[in-house]
């Protein structure tokens, strides 16, 4: 299965419904997008992600330099 946002096939089942066999939730290990099998997913073009752009996204909060003891 391909990720609905970044198009990679790094998708796995995160969990299944605790009651009955109603749905599964999928998550992409690259961009962390997640969705439920019962959803009609449509990721708007503006929110699609290219996998190689993810490391360059703004970091919040910035990781501080390590303090040497």
């Amino acid at each position, binding site marked *: 299965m391909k990720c609905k946002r970044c198009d990679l096939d790094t998708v796995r089942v995160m969990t299944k419904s605790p009651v009955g066999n109603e749905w599964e939730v999928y998550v992409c290990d690259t961009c962390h997008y997640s969705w439920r099998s019962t959803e009609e997913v449509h990721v708007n073009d503006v929110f699609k992600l290219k996998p190689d752009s993810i490391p360059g996204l703004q970091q*919040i909060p910035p990781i501080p330099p390590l303090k040497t003891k």
Partner: protein
Amino acid sequence: MAKVYKDLREFLATLEEEGQLVRIKEEVNPEPDIGAAGRACANMAEKPAVLFEKVKGYKYSVVTNVHGSWQNHALMMGMPKNTPVKEQFFELNRRWDKFPVPPKIVSRENASCKENTVTENINIFEILPLYRINDQDGGFFISKASVITGDPEFPDDLNKQNVGTYRIQVKDIDRIGIQALPFHDIAIQLRKAEEVNEPLPIAIALGNNPLVTFMASTPVAYDQNEYEFVGALQDGVPTEIVKADTAEHLYVPAHAEVILEGYIMPRVRTCEGPFGEFPGSYSGARNQCEIKITRITHRNNPIFENLYLGMPWTEIDYLMALNTSVPLYKQLKSSFPEIQAVNAMYTHGIGTIVSTKVRYGGFGKGVAFRLLSTPHGMPYCKIIIIVDEFVDPFNLEQVMWALTTRVKPTEHVTIIHNCAGMPLDPSSIPAGMHDKLIIDATTPVPPEPNPRSVELLKPSPATPKWEEIIKKLMDAAAKK
């Protein structure tokens, strides 16, 4: 003594008695039903809380829009549900001065949040009916958590323990993302932990006494204890807390529905968002912190309380309205007793109206500068309107009157370039920088000239009598 709620359940019972909570007994789908109902409430005149008893595939119930109307807000404070906003503001101010009211620490046996404990095979979907709030959100979000962290440098200083509201994205069955913006209290603590590559212990309380949630989203000083404020806002009745299980120095609300415990993984950032945010637009994907959950405690049949955010006004606007206004009022008032009231209800204070007496020429503009030098006002407040003491800043018709009859644009409108801004405001470019707009709509006083001074129209002293007569006739007509 005002009515005080021990926990969320007591408050929900009151909301139901007062006609401010509806129950959905039929099974609903997680998407789009729960988010859509939150939006629907916000569109209505009465705006009740909505309790979903059955959500497809889940064990437990969800409640939304608990704080989402002025009626619910008044009931939270133990006031009659139709109390006007300005009265709620002044009542909050009165109780605020009771700070600090130390919380009562209860034993683990007496804390309802510890009725059940999960330490193995943690899966938050087993406890929480998680769902997508808005359709372009990057996942399922927990939007109404009270997040508790300590200061790694002063772990025993309870005043530096922070209880705050931060958005949380579900990343896995036991991992969640959290947004800690650099100017938030939690970022101070996280920085200290990350500098030495240590995890930051964290506890997340869901489904709280409504004033705990209210205080968690209130901007108070870093060394002020939120629990001591809850006691103050409960008119002097201490709130009950209990020690967290996994961290000696963290205390959680004793009767929360669910407590997630764990730690922020140091020096880790993963993709988070987008998320539909309080300015009514999505904030995009960024690399943000992650929490590993190591323990869950919860009440029997826990209720998952979550909030809807959308185009204002929605529940979050009610939750953050007066708790943004009151601290700003207190800070301004302590410098200038002339301040009458502060309405910082528009998009978390991005738009703020201050009513003040004017002691000398330029005073109104000076009050705006003071607002911009408060910790919350510096990044958030962008459009600042100053009105005379006799203008009610909570009455927008009166504020518009002041703008239309008091403002000379060339004299009274000031733009200050290149200041701090609120990054989630989409007009802040780059995110975090902004200009400030000050409109001084007070009447000019010397030495500022006022060549066309006017006499204001005054109501007849008989007006209150007539208000009563007309109201009685209206009530009688409504009963027919």
